[in-house]
């Protein structure tokens, strides 16, 4: 074999294949080694890319992974009356929440929970809807106001139901709730628009003010939410707390209301179907009482809303949710004569000495306007106010014209809303020629001036406006109502009205006469306190014209009863206005109410006693620096 091969190849040397293979292996092994090193270089490049070039991006993602922020709802500020009586505060509320992201299955969790806490179909629907709509990391409220027993049971169950949370939050409790209802208002779940503006609102149990002071001062009362940053593992279980920013409580509010006087006022008007009364401190403008009947209990509305009672409230024909004192617009009737008298004196069309005679009616062109009685002759300003003679004021109004009357009416605070922290005020109407052209596209008629002179026709105003008007007449200053006590405004007196003090004095003496002199329309409502006089003016305003009278019930046909007053007459401190809807004559229905409320005010003298300063207002400098004052 070997021989044959050797022959075949001849003298050629046989190639050493083994050695060749060995060299080839060496070459290729080095090649493979190089390739391996090169591929490790690729891995190094990849690590460089991930860990150095894109590191910050991945670090962010990693933090996002492990951190969870939870907002902490702030405690809402309390509301006090002027003497520090608690009106509204946050109280402990045991709640059941669910975080859908951490639940194994949301329906299953709900089923398990319903064994402890009853869950209605509606609640279940709401929870499922909310779970679909918002991030699974926002807790959804299932039930609140749990009993301690339920709370304890839920906490026992907690390890088996991931995503379930039982916590202790706050709910709003209102004291003296029925008298204060309209003023303080109530809180409710945030509306959809609000939620879109601020994610804090999505926190379950977070309530915002819906009406009243709760609404106006919502920002201040609300405080600012805190947050807790947790480290969580991949299943969302909290590993530890990384840090927290405490929530800061809302500011406390002190109202100028005296809750006792408020309660007395409400009790006094309760006998009427719909009525309201306002008492002002004429010096500061502080609202001491503002009662409106029918009323409601905000505790029924703010927390655990009972659908039945809510329906009843909102469908009641007397609208208990409405604050008549600021929303009710009534023709001021004869109370407006105070304005007409002042305007006439200011315009110079009448003076203190001129007398007119009242035949019981007044003609403009072919139209005849009636006076409520024939007063006979010798009616001057004093007598006209005291006896409420329509004829005198028809003539006065006609002489000066509507524009001047409207100007003085506005000067006395009518026809506008006040920035005193009460939402939903009506402005009322103080008509003039421009107003009629703009709103009714018609020219002004003299007859309309004449009836405006006695506060009928287009004229309308709210009880609060009438109280302000009476305070302005009493003091001669441009008093504005205030509802919130703040330590900053140790107010300088209100600016003087640009009215002649002598004219004001004439009108005031007329108003004193109304209550205290024989022949005065509210003679029967004189104060029973010795040496203390009240000045006032009755009003009885017609609500219907003769065209639609037949369509109305007897109640609706009845006139509104109005009364404005201030006391003491010689050194005014309290002003009041009362409107009894369809109450009949002002002297019979409204004047006794005002007399009783003013009597109570005079005896209690809330304006003369030191007021309460809330804790959160105590260091005024620091608070003022930290929070922008509204």
């Amino acid at each position, binding site marked *: 074999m070997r021989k044959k091969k050797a022959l075949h190849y001849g003298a050629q040397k046989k190639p050493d294949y083994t050695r060749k*293979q060995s060299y080839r292996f060496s070459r290729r092994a080095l090649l493979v080694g190089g390739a391996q*090193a090169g591929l*490790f270089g690729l*891995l*190094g490049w990849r690590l460089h890319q991930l860990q150095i070039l894109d590191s910050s991006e*991945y670090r962010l993602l990693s933090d996002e992974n492990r951190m969870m922020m939870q907002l902490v709802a702030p405690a809402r500020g309390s509301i006090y009356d002027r003497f520090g009586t608690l009106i509204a505060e946050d109280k402990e509320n045991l709640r059941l929440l669910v975080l859908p992201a951490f639940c194994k299955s949301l329906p299953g969790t709900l089923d398990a929970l319903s064994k402890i806490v009853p869950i209605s179909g509606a609640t279940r629907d709401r929870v499922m809807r909310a779970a679909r709509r918002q991030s699974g990391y926002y807790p959804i409220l299932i039930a609140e106001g749990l009993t301690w027993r339920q709370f304890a049971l839920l906490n026992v169950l907690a390890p088996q139901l991931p995503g379930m949370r039982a916590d202790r939050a706050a709910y709003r409790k209102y004291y003296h709730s029925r008298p204060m209802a309209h003023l303080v208002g109530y809180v409710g779940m945030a509306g959809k628009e609000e939620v879109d503006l601020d994610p804090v609102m999505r926190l379950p149990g977070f309530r915002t003010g819906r009406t009243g002071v709760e609404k106006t001062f919502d920002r201040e009362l609300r405080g600012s939410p805190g947050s807790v940053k947790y480290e969580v593992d991949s299943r969302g279980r909290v590993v530890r707390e990384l840090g927290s920013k405490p929530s800061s409580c809302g500011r406390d509010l002190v109202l100028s209301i005296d809750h006792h006087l408020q309660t007395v006022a409400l009790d006094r008007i309760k006998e009427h179907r719909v009525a309201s009364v306002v008492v002002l401190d004429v010096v500061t403008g502080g609202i001491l009482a503002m009662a409106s009947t029918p009323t409601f209990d905000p505790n029924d509305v703010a927390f655990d809303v009972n659908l039945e009672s809510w329906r009843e409230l909102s469908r009641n024909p007397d609208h208990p949710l409405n604050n008549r004192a600021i929303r009710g617009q009534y023709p001021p009737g004869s109370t407006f004569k105070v304005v007409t008298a002042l305007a006439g004196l200011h315009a110079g069309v009448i003076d203190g000495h001129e007398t007119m005679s009242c035949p019981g009616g007044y003609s403009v062109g072919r139209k005849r306007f009636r006076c409520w009685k024939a007063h006979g002759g010798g009616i001057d300003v004093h007598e006209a106010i005291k006896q409420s003679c329509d004829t005198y004021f028809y003539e006065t109004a006609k002489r000066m014209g509507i524009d001047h009357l409207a100007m003085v009416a506005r000067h006395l605070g009518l026809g506008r809303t006040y920035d005193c922290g009460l939402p939903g005020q009506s402005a009322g109407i103080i008509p003039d020629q421009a107003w009629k052209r703009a709103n009714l596209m018609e020219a002004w008629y003299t007859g309309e001036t004449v009836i405006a002179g006695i506060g009928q026709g287009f004229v309308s105003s709210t009880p609060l406006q009438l109280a302000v008007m009476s305070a302005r007449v009493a003091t001669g200053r441009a008093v504005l109502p205030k509802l919130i006590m703040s330590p900053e405004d140790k107010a300088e007196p209100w600016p003087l009205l640009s009215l002649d003090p002598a004219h004001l004095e004439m009108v005031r003496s007329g108003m004193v006469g109304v209550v205290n002199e024989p022949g005065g329309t509210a003679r029967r409502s004189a104060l029973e306190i010795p040496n203390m006089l009240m000045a006032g003016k009755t009003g009885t305003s017609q609500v219907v014209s003769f065209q639609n009278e037949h369509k109305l019930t007897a109640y609706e046909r009845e006139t509104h009863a109005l009364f404005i007053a201030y006391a003491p007459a010689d050194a005014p401190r309290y002003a009041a206005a009362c409107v009894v809807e369809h109450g009949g004559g002002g002297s019979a229905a409204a004047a006794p109410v005002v007399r009783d409320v003013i009597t109570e005010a005079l005896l209690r003298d809330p304006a003369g006693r030191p007021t309460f300063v809330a804790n959160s207002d105590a260091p005024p400098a620091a608070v003022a620096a930290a929070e922008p004052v509204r």
Partner: protein
Amino acid sequence: MKLLFAESPAPKLNLSKKLLLLNWPFIFLITAIVLVGAASLYSVAGGALDPWASRHVVRFCFGLALLFAVAFSDIRFWLRGAYPFYLAALMLMLLVPFIGVESGGARRWLGYGELSFQPSEMMKITLVLALARYYQWLPPEKIWRPDALLPPVLMITLPILLALAQPDLGTAALFAIIGGGLLFLAGVSWFYFGAVIVGVVVALPHAWEKLHDYQRERVLTFIDPERDPLGSGYHILQSKIAIGSGGFAGKGYMQGTQAQLNFLPEKHTDFIFTMFAEEMGFIGAVVLLALYLLALLFITYMALRCRSIFAKLLAAGVGLTLFAYVFINVAMVTGLVPVVGVPLPLVSYGGTSMLTMIIGLGFVLNAHINRDVTFRRSEVRALW
């Protein structure tokens, strides 16, 4: 003289000589890598020896004994036993689909509980042995012939098919890399490798055309897991976040938030490199890779020093296995290649893979000790 030496029996080595011939620096390097693994496992357990770190070290100690046993054994025994071992491993792999234990959607295990083992792990070593044996047998001048290529290709393809059937893509890829690499090192012509590459490039688009849409979707998601960020993409994304957030210096030992807060899957096995890179940063990761690269260089050096092709291929084949493991694992956790489930050798927790790697390294040392041994024709020709 030279010929005479080659044909003469190798000098008989006694144990003391073998101990001297042992590559001690290499053993220290391996120990260092294992200790890195133990430290990582200590961190994975949240700063506890239990349940992984301690067992890892204990297993390595047993492994070390095995390493020495394999290293000091007679290389001729392994030369003779290469085919029978290969056949045994093939048989066991064949048995897996019938009596295997299913876990995680794939049948890979034989036996039960603590006594279970993966035949495919055994196959990794025996494949190297069998191929080395084949090329020791094949006269070097016949290596270019196509019919000489047939048996080794068959030897490689059978285990690949069996692995794919399990299904275990990672192992199949490992077999392909080891087999292909050994054929290349043995001296198979470039031409064949070129032909295979061209063939795949040409056939791939046609195969793609034939696939159903859902199959394509599955393949695409496999290649690019981020198409499915909540499914398979989740793990790889979390892994990349962990590695990336480690930055240059790392978050500190036992401070890796991704790992410690369980955002990482299987962090004690396949994703241990991720955790290491998160806690030790770029520096640590590069140092670990450098350790592996150093080990590979050692192995290449040892393979080059051997005289017989059997020893050369044996050492180089184990080197390829180690490389393939490390590369696939790191490339996988950094998102360079799809997730296939390959552990990081010597660092990941797991008995079987540790055992395979230690035995393999034992063969490397064995080849190194017997670097000057050559075989007689008669020794090679006998099947047993």
